[in-house]
């Protein structure tokens, strides 16, 4: 990031104000991961109708029940309206102008090992700083890399298989474990749940599937890297994670995407199911292309993520660092059904330039003694609009439920916005619910204090922003915390990292 520090120097020489210097740096921090890999794609023509869905299903060689499930979702989707309640503005999406299937062509019947993977693809990952080989050797992380819509490489399968963990692409799971998929698919996010979930259910192409059997502690962090590559291809991922009784899993999801001028739609669905005493930790770093400094291009990220604490003493924890996408619409939620179950949500959301984020969580307390914690940190810069929207619902059955919510917003620049819309619904008199929110800008006093001790403006802002997000970053697994800070640095401040 040498170019950024040069920029700082220039602006300081010109005696621009602190804020301006920072804002300039933000503007100049170009999207680092912007490149397009030239790979032949097996793409079907844009448009959406039942034939397209049948075609997707046929290409993936799916069983009849899944096709029927998709068609039901599609028919329901036709009756639904685009949701307009989110605090975001964008042009209407033409769902007929999107191509719903794109798979990288591979030689032969698919790679058996990394050597067989298209070298160009591997090169892409290397540019992203996540070379698969290196990760296999060093990090011990199993990677289910999703390149556009089909999994091309999966590592550490054997080690996981020894432990009894099933981890792989969704299409594989449909072929190899149809009974598990059928049993759990759509039980957390039903096909008709919302507009984008219905769309996803109809046209999803692939995703990740993970099953941790009873009493197993997953021997390694599981991770998936999503990328959007072929132009004009919406990506509809479907992730399903099931943790059986007493099992434990930590799942990482990271995203980057090439620079592009047209808006791309991404509508993923993630379903988590935790049975008795099971724990699922789901961490996300999202750094999709946010559009340029004029708000042109960027990804539309409309995601439905929901965890179901079905069993007693179960726990689901969401951690997210949202730095990318032109528009983010995402509410990772927990249904606390089992008694004594715990839901957590830790989030850092950054909006710079013309990015808009409407994100938050829902904590639905149904079981007795259920607890939830929500920590949300929003940072807005330039024209960014950052919204926290959350719901805490205590059902009549949820004796002794407890929730603590804290949402803080940091504003950088006088054209951005920070908004908070929390819904709190309590139907049980033993519940204790607390919600707190604050909004502030980086304090001139804090900056002055740091500068007075010989710390440069840039470093001072770094420190303050890092401190602001610390509560969330500390929830991330080690490997991710580093990347999260790096992404925050690239996306926003040019001050962090």
């Amino acid at each position, binding site marked *: 990031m040498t170019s950024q520090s040069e920029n700082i120097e220039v602006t300081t020489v010109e005696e621009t104000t602190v804020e301006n210097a920072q804002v300039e740096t933000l503007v100049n921090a170009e999207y680092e991961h912007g490149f397009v890999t030239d790979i032949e794609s097996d793409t079907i023509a844009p448009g959406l109708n039942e034939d397209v869905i049948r075609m997707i299903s046929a290409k993936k060689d799916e069983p009849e029940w899944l096709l029927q499930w998709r068609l039901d979702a599609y028919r329901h989707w036709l009756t639904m309206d685009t949701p307009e309640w989110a605090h975001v503005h964008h042009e209407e999406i033409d769902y007929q102008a999107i191509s719903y299937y794109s798979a990288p062509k591979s030689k032969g019947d698919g790679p058996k090992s990394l050597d067989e993977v298209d070298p160009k693809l591997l090169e892409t990952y290397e540019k992203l700083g996540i070379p698969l080989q290196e990760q296999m050797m060093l990090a011990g992380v199993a990677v289910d890399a999703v390149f556009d819509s089909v999994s091309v490489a999966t590592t550490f399968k054997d080690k996981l298989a020894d432990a009894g963990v099933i981890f792989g692409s969704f299409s594989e799971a449909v072929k190899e474990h149809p009974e598990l998929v059928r049993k759990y698919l759509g039980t957390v996010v039903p096909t008709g749940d919302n507009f984008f979930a219905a769309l996803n259910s109809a046209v999803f192409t692939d995703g990740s599937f993970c099953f941790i059997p009873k009493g197993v502690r997953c021997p390694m962090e599981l991770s998936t890297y999503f990328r959007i590559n072929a132009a004009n291809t919406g990506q509809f991922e479907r992730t399903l994670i099931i943790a059986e009784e007493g099992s434990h899993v930590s799942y990482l999801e990271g995203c980057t995407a090439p620079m592009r001028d047209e808006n791309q739609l991404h509508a993923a669905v993630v379903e988590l199911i935790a049975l008795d005493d099971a724990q699922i930790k789901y961490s996300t770093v999202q750094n999709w292309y946010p559009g340029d400094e004029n708000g042109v291009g960027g990804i539309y990220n409309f995601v439905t993520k929901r965890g179901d604490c079905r069993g007693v003493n179960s726990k689901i924890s969401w951690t997210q660092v949202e730095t990318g996408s032109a528009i983010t619409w995402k509410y990772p939620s927990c249904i606390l059904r089992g008694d004594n179950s715990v839901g957590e949500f830790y989030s850092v959301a950054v909006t710079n330039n013309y990015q808009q984020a409407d994100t938050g969580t829902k904590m639905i307390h149904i079981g007795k003694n259920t607890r939830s914690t929500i920590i949300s940190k929003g940072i807005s810069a330039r024209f960014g609009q950052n919204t926290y929207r959350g719901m805490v619902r205590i059902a009549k059955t949820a004796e002794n439920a407890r929730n603590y919510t804290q949402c803080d917003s940091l504003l950088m620049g006088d054209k951005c916005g920070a908004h908070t819309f*929390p819904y*709190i619904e309590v139907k049980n008199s*033993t519940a204790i619910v607390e919600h707190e929110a604050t909004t502030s800008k980086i304090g001139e006093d804090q900056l002055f204090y740091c500068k007075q001790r010989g710390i440069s403006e840039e470093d001072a802002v770094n420190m303050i922003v890092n401190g602001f997000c610390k509560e969330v970053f500390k929830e991330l697994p080690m490997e991710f915390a580093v990347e999260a800070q790096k992404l925050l640095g690239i996306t926003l401040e040019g001050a962090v990292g």
Partner: protein
Amino acid sequence: MSSPQDNILAENFHAAFSAHQDANAVGDLKSLSWLSAHRQSAFDQFQKEGFPTRHHENWKYTDVSRITKTGFITANPTHNAIQTDELDKLKFNTENCHELVFINGQFSAEHSDIGSLDDQVVIGSLRDALKNTPELIEKRFNQFAKKNHSRENHVFAALNTAFFHDGAFIYVPDNVVIEEPIVIYYISSHNEVMLTTAPRNLIIMGKNAQASVIESFHGLKGVVSFTNTITEIETEDGAVLEHYKVQQENTDSFHIGGTHLKLHRNSRVESHSISLGGAIVRNDIVTDLAGEGAEIILNGLYMGNGRQHVDNHTLVNHSKPHTRSDEYYRGVLDGRARGVFNGKVIVHKDAQKTDASQSNANLLLSDHAEIDTKPELEIYADDVKCSHGATVGQLDKNMLFYLRSRGLDADTAKSLLTFAFADEVIRRIKFAPIREQLEFNVGGRLPGSDLIKANLSSARQN
């Protein structure tokens, strides 16, 4: 407005509105074409939008279908009777005040006691003022409707504009201080049919003017009514106003009220809203801090029991820099009552140095009671200090134990703590007669409250 029942309702309204316009046109307000225009456009809005359903975000937790089924029989000037002794029982224990009395929405000169006023000060009926000094009213009337924002100007506000008959008009000229409080009583006394009354009030405070206004809503025993009230307040530079709204109607009555405030430079308003009665109650307080240095204090208490439903919506617009808002609302819900709180603060572009704080605390005393609270912040400026907090909880077990260990029975201990929780709001009321009576009424609602009452009345006598 699609179902056959709605269509009938719409036709009823149309007929009623035509009759209403005719009556006004041939009556004494015929020369006020601007007023007719307001009424017409409000009625058009109503016809276009219809009644809200729970699909409207603004009415997500409040179902008004029970109100829309009431038939809307509008009160008329014949509904103007009350026994003096019955009225006296409802009054605050105040001496030296300017009193206005409205019986079923009709101004009662007989029961009102306006007292002596300085030159140019106007305290009286809006209908009279429209005849005598329409020029004072024209520019200030119905300003909020222009914003065309459904949250600020919802259908019930439009219905008030279309159908209002009378209300209070208060005009305090520049640099005038009115020492005695202005107390306005709205009494529902008609028990043959359920009457709809639409009081319309306008309060104008000139530069550096000062006054206290109390709006008090009551129903006589057994009277069921629907009150749809609107108060508009405008304070010029440096004006100071204390505004109280006390709603103690019967628990079968419906009440929908809107208070719309516009504050100019360095003016300050303290608003106290106390909701104790009503089957379905909805209060909207919409504030525009339209001048630098303007300040609003919003205090509120809502208590529900039985099947009461109390909904409080507040919206504070920080339109100019250096404005301040401080909101403090508390709710106590028992029985099968449901409380709704929605407090929104918008800091508009360039409203730098805004200081906004908001707090909503709720006490849930029964497993059948419910609270839905939604404190919202929308911020478009960076150099601001904004915070909000909301809590839902119960009485502290340790405190209960402490009181029980000192020999108080369970009910009294519980009531005492509940009373203390509610009193956090009431004690902020500066005007003693109201504060004392509210403390007495709130204390009196609670089970096993004899001890509290006894203490309060002895305190009153001292």
